[in-house]
């Protein structure tokens, strides 16, 4: 592999990481503002216009807090767990396509790498994300952390199954694991105006995926493992300053990952009406992608501001007894339809 190609890939990675970390920081701001408005209050308004510099203030606060390590914690694992959570949260962006296949000088502009098994890569990275949480909960040597960590990771591995099963329907329709070809198989329109996005034939799978993804990222209404009234703060009780910030970043980065995946797999990725001059037509796909991801993030925040949380046994029962059978039924139905269509 030529050195120049390696350097270009590193530049792409740095740009994606910069954009992603900014999006994550402002997702926190967005959530605070929207939840506040839903609760008839203002949210952050003092730091900068409309509180836009609040993430900066939060970052400074978290960086300068005292760094405490509890006595009796397993130091090596205690220090490595937040890093593991953040690394696995960020790694999924290596395969997500942000725009159409545009090449400048032989390098893909809008995707870091187009793996043939892109979807499996994202699933494998999110499976490894469970370790950050379970090891953090255990290594803190505290009851709240242990219980929170075990509950959270049990929830995550249960809903990973529902996610995987609901995605198989999409795979059957598009015939490829590569994310870019899945998006490209959603081009065109039914009857001229309804876009051929996977959300229409796979509506059940879409709902299944969204619900399971909210549970996978430990967000309300599935956030019992980190609820303050239940377990102090769950698996990140004993973490302070930058390590806590890494868990926070990892949670919101997981949210953004799931939103990007939902856009790419169900909503047609970057596809949308193209108009205007050439340079505008190059940027418009990125705009449509960002708007769709923003829509999903708003949905996440909206659900958080509206619904009460599930009890843990209700949560696990819902995952195993409702979502998995529904996803399996969707799989059977889709396979039947494809078999009858191509007999």
């Amino acid at each position, binding site marked *: 592999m030529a050195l120049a190609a390696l350097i270009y890939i590193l530049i792409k990675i740095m740009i994606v990481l910069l954009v992603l970390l900014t999006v994550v920081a402002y997702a926190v701001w967005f959530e605070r503002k929207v939840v506040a408005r839903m609760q008839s209050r203002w949210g952050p308004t003092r730091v900068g216009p409309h509180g836009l510099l609040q993430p900066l203030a939060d970052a400074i606060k978290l960086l300068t807090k005292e760094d405490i390590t509890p006595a009796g914690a397993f130091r090596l694992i205690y220090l490595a767990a937040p890093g593991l959570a953040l690394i696995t949260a960020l790694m999924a962006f290596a395969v997500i396509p942000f725009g159409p296949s545009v090449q400048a000088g032989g390098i893909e502009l809008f995707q870091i790498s187009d793996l043939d098994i892109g979807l499996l*890569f994202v699933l494998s990275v999110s499976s490894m994300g469970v370790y950050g949480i379970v090891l953090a909960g255990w290594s803190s040597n505290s009851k709240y952390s242990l219980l929170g960590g075990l509950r959270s990771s*049990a929830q995550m591995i249960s809903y990973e199954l529902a996610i995987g099963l609901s995605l198989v329907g999409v795979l059957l329709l598009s015939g490829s694991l590569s994310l870019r070809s899945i998006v490209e198989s959603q081009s065109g329109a039914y009857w001229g105006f309804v876009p051929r996005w996977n959300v229409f034939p796979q509506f059940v799978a879409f709902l299944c995926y969204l619900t399971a993804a909210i549970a996978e990222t430990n967000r309300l209404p599935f956030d019992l493992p980190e609820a303050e009234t239940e377990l102090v703060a769950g698996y990140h009780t004993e973490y302070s300053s930058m390590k806590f910030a890494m868990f926070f970043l990892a949670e919101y980065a997981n949210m953004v990952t799931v939103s990007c995946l939902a856009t790419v797999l169900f909503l047609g990725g970057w596809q949308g009406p193209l108009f205007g001059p050439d340079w505008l037509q190059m940027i418009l796909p990125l705009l449509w992608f960002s708007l769709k991801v923003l829509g999903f993030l708003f949905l996440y925040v909206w659900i958080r501001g509206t619904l009460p949380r599930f009890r843990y046994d209700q949560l696990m029962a819902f995952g195993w007894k409702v979502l998995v059978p529904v996803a399996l039924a969707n799989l059977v139905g889709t396979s039947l339809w494809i078999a009858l269509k191509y007999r």
Partner: protein
Amino acid sequence: MYPVFFFIFAGAAIAFAVNLLIQRHPIYSALSLIGVMASLASLYLMLGAEFIAAVQVIVYAGAIMVLFVFVIMLLNAGEEERTHRSRLVRHIGAPLIVMLLGLITSVIYREFPEDAMVRFGDFPGQTASIGLRLFLDYLLPFEVVSILILVAIIGAVVLAQKES
């Protein structure tokens, strides 16, 4: 280039495996085993079997090892005690193991000529072709394995039931 990667990942797999044996606390052993799985997945990837590599990470490192880690945490397994029984074992055992490994290596080098060794990219298995083989040629073993897993699940449910 590729031999460098091979030695890095194979060396990492061996190092993690040796670490698994040496560590006293079971959680570090479990984490070393995860490292072994990840190194093996990288080796599969270099051979060209990308589906197998992804499935190795998802199933082995992401599900089976999570259960290992759960069990270690829930049973609160502590550090194991070392009983310093016999120095003879330590002083003769380690050289004997090295000799055994050297013997196996030399026999392998002598028996298999250079061009029978596996090359990188030797097994390009597109996921579609794996799926076709699995459901067309190997359908019976596939169904038998799924019955086996069903038996294991039923056994687990029976064992975990309360006595009533």
